[in-house]
C-alpha cells in the first residue's frame, strides 16, 4: 500500500526539508494561502469526513467551523502529549515525517485565522525537541513561516513546548492550562476551546495524527480522501499494536480493517501458539473486549467497535492472551490511573486511590469474593460523576474486566457461599 501518514516508510529522509519539498511538500499550504479563502479550507476538511484521531473521533471540519470569529486572536494547538498506555503513533510522525505534521498545523492556522500555533509535546519527547526546533528555523529561512507569506497578508509562527510528565495534559483543556503555565487540570466545558481556549482566546486543539492528514486532503481533495476507509469513518488510521503479539508496532491501515487482520496478518499472531483472550482497543482506557470470533471480525472504525462493547479511541490495540488474568491486568491499569489522577475532582482522586487498595488486597490472595464486589461497587459509584473523561476511563477495565471475565476473579478469591451471588448491575 501507499502510505498517507507514514510516508517516511515509502520515502526515506522525508524528514529533510529538501526531500519533503521534492515530494510535493508545502504545495498544499501554498495553494490554500494564495488561492483559497479560509472558509473554503474548512469546508474541504469538513467534506473529507476526517475525524479526530486523538480518541474522541469528533469531525475535524466541524470543530474548525466552531471557531469564534468575534473574539481575536485565534490559536492552533497540536496535542502531542501522547500518554495513553498502548499509544505510540504520534512519536513516529514527529520523528520521521515532521514536515507533514507542521504543514497540517499551518493549513489549520490559515483556515481558522490563527497567526501562532503551539505544538505541546509530552516532556519525555525531549530528544525530539531540538530537531523539531531546528526544522521550524529551516521553514522560516525558506520563507514558509514568518510574515506576509507568499506575498499575502497572512503571517504565522510555530512554537514547540514540552510538558513534564502528566497524562492528564492529553485532555485538551488541561493541556491548555499547562501551556499557560499552570497545573494541568481540566476546565469545565462548555465553553469549548473553539470559543474559549489558549489565553481565553478561540483555539483549535487537534491531535498530531489528525493534523498530519490535512495536507493530503488539501493536495488530493476530499473525494480522494473518502475512497480510503469506510463511509462514516473515512481515511487511514495508525493502529498502535502492543501486548501479546509477535510483531508489535505501528500499522497504518484503512479505518474498517478488522481486528483479525491487524493482529494475525500484520501482527503475526500470538506468541507461543497461545490463544487470544481479550483486546483493549483504546489503550488502558478501554472497555475490555472478549476476543471471540465476532470481535475479531469486527471492523476497527468509530461505528463498529461500540457494537462489541468498546470504543476505537486512539486505536491503541493491546492484545492479551490466555496466560493473563484480568485481576492482574486491572491492577496495572488502576495503578496507572491512580498515579495520573490530577486531583481536581473527588470521585477520580479518591476513587482511584481506594480502588488500588482493594485490587492490591485481591492480588495478595486469600481475600473473600466480597472484595471484588466492593471494587465493582466503588467503580460504579465513580461512573458518571467525574469532572473529565479520564476519571471515567479509570473504571472501564474494572467494570468490564469483572463483568466479562468473572471466572478470573472467582479463581483469585475464596469460594465462600457469598461468592456465588451475581454482581449487581
Amino acid at each position, binding site marked *: 500500500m501507499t502510505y498517507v501518514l507514514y510516508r517516511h516508510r515509502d520515502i526515506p529522509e522525508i524528514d529533510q526539508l529538501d526531500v519533503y519539498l521534492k515530494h510535493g511538500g508545502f504545495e498544499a499550504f501554498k495553494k490554500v494561502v494564495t488561492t483559497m479563502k479560509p472558509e473554503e479550507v474548512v469546508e474541504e476538511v469538513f467534506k473529507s469526513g476526517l475525524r479526530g484521531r486523538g480518541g474522541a473521533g469528533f469531525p475535524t471540519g466541524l470543530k474548525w467551523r466552531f471557531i469564534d470569529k468575534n473574539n481575536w486572536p485565534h490559536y492552533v494547538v497540536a496535542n502531542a502529549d501522547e500518554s495513553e498506555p498502548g499509544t505510540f503513533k*504520534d512519536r513516529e510522525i514527529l520523528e520521521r515525517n515532521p514536515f507533514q505534521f507542521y504543514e497540517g498545523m499551518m493549513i489549520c492556522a490559515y483556515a481558522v485565522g490563527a497567526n501562532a500555533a503551539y505544538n505541546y509535546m509530552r516532556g519525555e519527547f525531549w530528544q525530539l525537541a531540538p530537531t523539531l526546533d531546528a526544522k521550524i528555523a529551516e521553514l522560516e529561512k525558506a520563507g514558509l513561516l514568518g510574515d506576509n507569506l507568499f506575498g499575502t497578508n497572512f503571517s504565522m509562527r510555530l512554537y514547540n513546548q514540552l510538558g513534564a510528565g502528566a497524562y492528564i495534559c492529553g485532555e485538551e483543556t488541561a493541556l491548555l492550562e*499547562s501551556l499557560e503555565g499552570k497545573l494541568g487540570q481540566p476546565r469545565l466545558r462548555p465553553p469549548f476551546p473553539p470559543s474559549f481556549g489558549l489565553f481565553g482566546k478561540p483555539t483549535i486543539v487537534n491531535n498530531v495524527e489528525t493534523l498530519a492528514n490535512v495536507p493530503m486532503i488539501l493536495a488530493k481533495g476530499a473525494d480522494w480522501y473518502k475512497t480510503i476507509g469506510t463511509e462514516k469513518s473515512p481515511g487511514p488510521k495508525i493502529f498502535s499494536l502492543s501486548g501479546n503479539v509477535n510483531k508489535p508496532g505501528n500499522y497504518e491501515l484503512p479505518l474498517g480493517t478488522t481486528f483479525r487482520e491487524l493482529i494475525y496478518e500484520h501482527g503475526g499472531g500470538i506468541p507461543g501458539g497461545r490463544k487470544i483472550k481479550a483486546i483493549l482497543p483504546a489503550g488502558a482506557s478501554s472497555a475490555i473486549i472478549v476476543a471471540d470470533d465476532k470481535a475479531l471480525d469486527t471492523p476497527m472504525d468509530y461505528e463498529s467497535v461500540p457494537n462489541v462493547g468498546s470504543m476505537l479511541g486512539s486505536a491503541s490495540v493491546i492484545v492479551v492472551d490466555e496466560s493473563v488474568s484480568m485481576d492482574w491486568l486491572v491492577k496495572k491499569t488502576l495503578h496507572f490511573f491512580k498515579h495520573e489522577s490530577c486531583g481536581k475532582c473527588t470521585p477520580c482522586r479518591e476513587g482511584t486511590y481506594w480502588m488500588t487498595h482493594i485490587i492490591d488486597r485481591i492480588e495478595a490472595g486469600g481475600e473473600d469474593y466480597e472484595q471484588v464486589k466492593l471494587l465493582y461497587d466503588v467503580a460504579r459509584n465513580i461512573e458518571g460523576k467525574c469532572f473529565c473523561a479520564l476519571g471515567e476511563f479509570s473504571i472501564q477495565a474494572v467494570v468490564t474486566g469483572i463483568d466479562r471475565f468473572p471466572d478470573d476473579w472467582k479463581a483469585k478469591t475464596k469460594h465462600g457461599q457469598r461468592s456465588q451471588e451475581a454482581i449487581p448491575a
Partner: protein
Amino acid sequence: MNNLLEKYNDEVQTILNKYPEDRKRSAVMPLLYVAQREKMYVSQADMAEVAEIIGVSPTEVASIVGFYSLYYDKPGAKFRIQVCTDLPCALRGADEFMEGLCHRLKLDPHHGGTTEDGKVTVEAVMCLAACDKAPMFQLQSGEGIVYHENQTVETAMKLVEELRNTQ
C-alpha cells in the same frame, strides 16, 4: 540578583519570546528545565528566580514542580533510570526486567532505589509511549531525557556501569 537570568540570559529570552508579551507565565515549564539542568533538582532559591522572571509567586512555581513528575525539589541521583512497567510493557516482560535490574544493583525489586554511590536511581514509571519496544526505560539527567528501548538486564547494566564511572 537573579542567577538564572544572569547565567542563561539568551536562553531565557528565547523562551520568553515564544509567548505573547503579557503571557510570560507560560514560560514556567521550560524555565524549570533550565533551572534543573545542573543539579538535577530545583531548589527553593531557583523557584524564586523563575517566579521573579515570569512575575508570579514562588509558591505558584513550587506547585508546578510538585504537580509534574519530571521535576524534582530535592537533591538526588544525577541519573535516573525510569523503567516503564505499565500494562503493554508488562505484557512484554517489563516487570521481570525491572526486578532483574534491581536484583543486580541490590535494590528493592519493585520500587527500585539509588545505588550505593548515590549516582543512579532506578524507578518504575508510567507509560512512556514506546510500548512496542519493551522492555524500555528513559534515562533522565539534568541534560535531558534519552530513550533506551528493547533492553535486557545486561544492556541496562552496561549503561549503569558507564554512568557510575562518569564524574
